[in-house]
């Protein structure tokens, strides 16, 4: 697992208070991890802070799974 993936996973576990095993790449924040809309906003803000990237609203809307988040952040960091 990449460093980004590890970090994303850690943030998700911390913010949503879910078991680490549940945070699979395919896991949906809302459907699988019990997040509400406010949680997703908090998660996006936590990602922004942790990785020093900006995630605009239209991009944030498309980040619904753990993998979405990892892919977006890795793309931003590569750019």
């Amino acid at each position, binding site marked *: 697992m990449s460093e980004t993936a590890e970090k994303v996973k850690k943030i998700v576990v911390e913010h949503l208070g879910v078991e680490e095993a549940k945070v699979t790449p395919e896991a949906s924040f809302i459907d699988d991890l019990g997040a*509400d809309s*406010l949680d997703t906003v*908090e998660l996006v*803000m936590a990602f922004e802070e942790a990785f020093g990237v900006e995630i605009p609203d239209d991009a944030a809307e498309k980040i619904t799974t753990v993998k979405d988040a990892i892919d977006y952040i890795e793309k931003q960091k590569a750019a």
Partner: protein
Amino acid sequence: MFDLTGKVALVTGATGGIGEAIAKALHAQGATVAITGRRESELARVAESLGGARVIVAPADLADPAAPAALVEKIEAEAGSLDILVNNAGFTRDMLALRMGDADWNAVLEVDLNAPFRLARAALRGMMKKRWGRVVSIASIVGVTGNAGQANYAAAKAGLIGMSKSLAQEVATRGVTVNVVAPGFVKTAMTDALPEAARTALLSRIPTQRMGSPEDVAAAVVYLASPEAGWVTGQTLHVNGGMAMF
């Protein structure tokens, strides 16, 4: 009841009047109080009257759009958290609408409505993380009734009420409440500026037949800031001697 020991509160416009009374009342309940305003000498006076302990003096000009976030950051860094935000700062620039320029309108909206929003936005994040927080904004009776000569001020105060109801719904699941206290005519420098005839006319419309004191308003803020008021959110508590009953 209403014990605020261990809580950190920020009171804007704490240089006198209602803000000073709120700072003192929260402090008396055990809170650490950060006081802000533009006049540093007045802040120093208020800090001294609080005894110096559990007080943070943080001068700021809320007309500066960058000030609110910096203020919240400073308090969170110094005190460890910000649990209670009291949006009290405000000013009037009264004139009939026909004479009211854009600058007169905007200046009042900037400090009386935009700054409270920016402060709430900055403060809510930490409150949500801690699963506890209180936002109390001081509006005014004229935000509900309107008042000739105060289109800007009344719009800003009505705006605080709508803003608070929306924020209350957004953060309710996080243990954060957002409420408004709407004072009627309270004896402060702001109302001392009224002509004698206007004051007499006002008194005749107040069933309790006295003007309010800053402490009357502060007591309402203490209640809404307290753990006991956790099931009260999105509300406007009118403190006006019965002048208007909603």
